[in-house]
Every structure is written in C-alpha cells, then in structure tokens.
C-alpha cells in the first residue's frame, strides 16, 4: 500500500509526475508553470484518493500549488 499523506509525500509525488528533482520548486510555485497538465493532475488526484483524500482533480485545479493542495488534503494538519 502507499504511504499516508504528508507534506513531504505531496512534494515527492509532484516532483515525480513532473519529472523534476524534489526541492527544485517551492511550495507556493504555480505548478502550471512547471508543466503540470490535466493528465498529471488526474494521476495525482487518483494517488491521493487511494491514500484517503476526497479531493478530485477539479478541486486540485482551482489553485495548483503544493501549499493549497496540502490545505485541501489535510485541513487539520496544515493549520
């Protein structure tokens, strides 16, 4: 099974689908500028749904940054 959701896991997953080095982008970078597209967004949404998130790709598309997604995926922990 996959690792539980954590901020580090989000960063790692995003780096993987964008084929970038982890740490090469900031949490508040707009990921569309990093080559995020609908297909990559959908695969991220599926991964995180498997780990228990309720957010679909449309929600993720609203504000495509790690920071916004962490708030969306873990509203308690991100406070």
């Amino acid at each position, binding site marked *: 099974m996959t690792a539980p959701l954590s901020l580090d896991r989000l960063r790692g997953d995003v780096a993987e689908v964008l084929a970038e080095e982890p740490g090469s982008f900031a949490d508040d970078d707009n990921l569309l500028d990093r080559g995020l597209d609908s297909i990559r967004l*959908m695969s991220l949404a599926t991964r995180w749904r498997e780990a228990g998130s309720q957010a679909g790709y449309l929600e993720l598309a609203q504000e495509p940054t790690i920071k916004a997604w962490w708030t969306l995926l873990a509203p308690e922990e991100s406070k």
Partner: protein
Amino acid sequence: MSPTVESADVVVIGGGPGGSTVSTLLAKRGHRVVLLEKETFPRYQIGESLLPSTVHGIGRLLGVTEELEAAQFMVKRGGSFRWGSNPVPWNFLFAVAPELSGPTSYAYQVERLKFDEILLRNAARNGVDVRENAPVTEVVADDDRVRGVRYTDEDGGQREIRATFVVDASGNRSRVHQNVRGERIYSDFFKNIALFGYFEGGKRLPAPDTGNILCAAFDEGWIWYIPLSDTLTSVGAVISREHAAKLQGDQEQALLGFIDRCAIVKDFLAGATRVTEGTYGEIRTRKDYSYTNSTFHRPGMVLVGDAACFIDPVFSTGVHLATYSGLLAARSINSVLAGDVTEDRAFAEFEGRYRREYRVFYEFLSAFYDMQSDESSYFWRARKVTNFNTTDLEAFVSLVGGVHSGEQALTQARKSSGALADAVERTGDMQTESGERMHHLFGTPVVREVMQEMNNIQVRGIRGADAKELPLLDNGLVPGPDGLSWMDPSVTAAPVLEEAK
C-alpha cells in the same frame, strides 16, 4: 459439403472500431485472433465525431497515435451547443480551463471510411488475421457455451472457426447479438431517427472552435453540424420517429426543410451546396433509438459496441462506447486465457463497467434533453423528464444498473437536469471569459461521472504502466500494468521487484 474447420483463440465479428480495438489488444498478448468483416474496407460509416479518450487513451494502447496525426483529421476541442435557454451557442470543451489544455484536450472529427481503415489495418499489422468480404452466417454453440462461427469466404465457400471466445462487434443492424440470448430493450424516450447528408462550403465557427461539432436544437429535434474538412460538412437532423413515414418520399426536401427551420444551421449553409455524387452524395437515414441488450455476455461470447447498446448521437459517444467496450472485452478475455481470473468474474467486471458507462451517459442524456424545454413542441415535450412515465423509466434504468424505483430515477433525473441547466447558465456564451472555463459543467455530478472512466483511459494511454487506477466497482478488478488485463487489487499488495532498467 461440410465446411472447412479451423481453430483460433478468439473470433471477432466486425471490423469497425470496436472489433479492431478488441482484436488488436488480444493479438498484442499473442493470442490467435481471426476478424471477420462482411464488407471490404474502406467503407462508409456514420458516427464521425470522436471523444478524447478514444484518441488519446485507446489510440495510444493500439499504437495509432502518429497515424491519426498524419491523417490530418479536423481537430475538435469540444462541442458547441445552441441548446437550452441561451440563444447564443455555449461550449462544452474538453479542457477544464485554457491554462490546463494539455495533451489530451482535443479529439478529431473523422471520415469514418479513413479512420476505421487505419484501425483495421493496424489490427492486421499487430497479427490479427483480418478477413474481409466474409459474412458470418451462424454462431456455433451448445448448451454450455458458444464454440465458434460459420461464415462465407470471398469465394463463396462455407467455413467454420472454432474458438474459445466469439466477440460480436457487428453493429446495430446485425442479428448476431441474439446468440447471447438476451433481449434488446429500447428506451421509450429516445426513439429518434436521423436523416443526414453532406455539404460543401458551409460556414465555420470562429477559431479556435472551427473544428467543434455544433449541435443546434430546433422545434422538431436537433441538427448535428460536423466539419470534416475546411469545406466538407456532415449535417444530420435527429427527429422523432413519427417523421419516418415522411422520409419515404423526397428525403432531400425533408432534410432541406429541417435545415430551413433551424436558424443557425440555415445561416451556416446559406452559401453551401449539397454533395450529390460519390460516397457523400447519398442522403441516408438511420434509426437512432437508444437501446441496450439485457445481457452482454454468455459463456464463450461477448457483445461490444452497437451490438450491445447504443445511445443517442448528441454526445458523440458511438465510437467511444465501441472502443471502450472493445478495451474491456480484451482485458476480460486476456485475463481468462491467461488463467488469471475466472470467466464469471472477468465478465462481471466487463458488464459492470460497460453498463455503468452506458448508465451515466443515459442520465446525462436525460438531463440534457430536459434542458431544451419547449412546451409547444411535440418533440421536446415528449423528452422532458417530468413527462417520463415512471414504470418505463424504471424498466430501463434498473436494466442499466441504476436505482431500482422509477420514482427515484425520476427524482435523480430532475436533480441532474437542474444542476446541468444551472451550470450551463453560469458557464455562459462560447468564447467569453467564463465560457472558456468548464469548472461549473465538470463539477456537476452527472458530468463528473461521465468523465471518470474516460479520464482513466486517457491517463492510461498517456502514462502507461505509471497510471494508477482504483477499482471502479465494489469489490471490482483493476487493470494490470500494461492495461490489457484485469488484476485483483487485494492480491497485488505484495512488493513488486523493481527490475534494473
């Protein structure tokens, strides 16, 4: 004289997109597949507007992406609809927003004689034994299962092929489907017929919507307007079956009459001439009733595409449902032939997913027709959700695996319709700031459900083995790494050795 008997793993009946898809994806796993097509390709077919999951999902699994690009089909970024209360067309685009228009946010409008041939020749290149001019005369079966088919070869000889599976991809007019022993059930609300022809020189929507399908409602039904090239347009009127008698007479006058009563299409065709020669010179009719078979499978036999079910053409779903069910059938057959999954379970997954796809489009269809409210029109009044008879609705909806009471179905249909109309209103006119953003439309429950599997297929096509899919059905199976068979998700938790690449 007794027929020549051969054997194969699978016999596929029909060389349209459904048959080509299933046979190619079986041959890719090394199975011996014979495809029997009654005509000789290329041949004419209707159903010209595609959806992205066919182009980017199935197309990539089949390996025809470059060939489709080289064919230079008209690029479609969505549908434009003169439909509902807005007098200006609005867009249903494939990209959720302009900044997210990635590699999968378009489809094609295709001349089916070209598209279908690309898929069929690709099947042959992948090892499928394609035999054209080979009509099937009989399905061979015993009490336990279907065992093969008999067909007439191009020299008129009678031949028989014994196979572990027979796939019926022979379309809406063939009777082969009766061999699964089900019934074909028609929806009472969408018994439409289509009358269609081709025009040269019709107008185009402004860029970037030039390649979009335009669907325009009018009093007696609606008209499709599909740009197949810069100058050639496919135009069809979808009308009530009560017009059938009228169509026995002068079909050209009938078609021109419908066009004349549909303002936007009339304007678009003002300077155009109807094609009167060659393949596109004929005016054709087709019974476009929405139907589904009561069963899609029997041991040894499975139905795909129009042989199994058909839904009204307004969403361009014909080729999608055919290629999607072709993929599902290939996954199930590959799994059974490999000994990974029992036939019962593999085809429960097939039928469950296929019916789900049909059901969500049927709900979308009901909501969509309900939006075009026009109490003075017989055609639209008969297709309003509130005028649905709950008993008929129940019979049909329970068949496709939805809720089980007519009342529930009606409530749900009303809700879907309201949410959809609301989203269309918020989205607004095409080519405006809001009209380019699909968040409202994609956010409605019915559209969300419609997009789910199509998105999965696209992610699979683009990302290959990296695509992660969750079970779609309760206790259901998931596609394996190559996307061509099923796995039980509960037995895949074991760590997989990462081979050095």
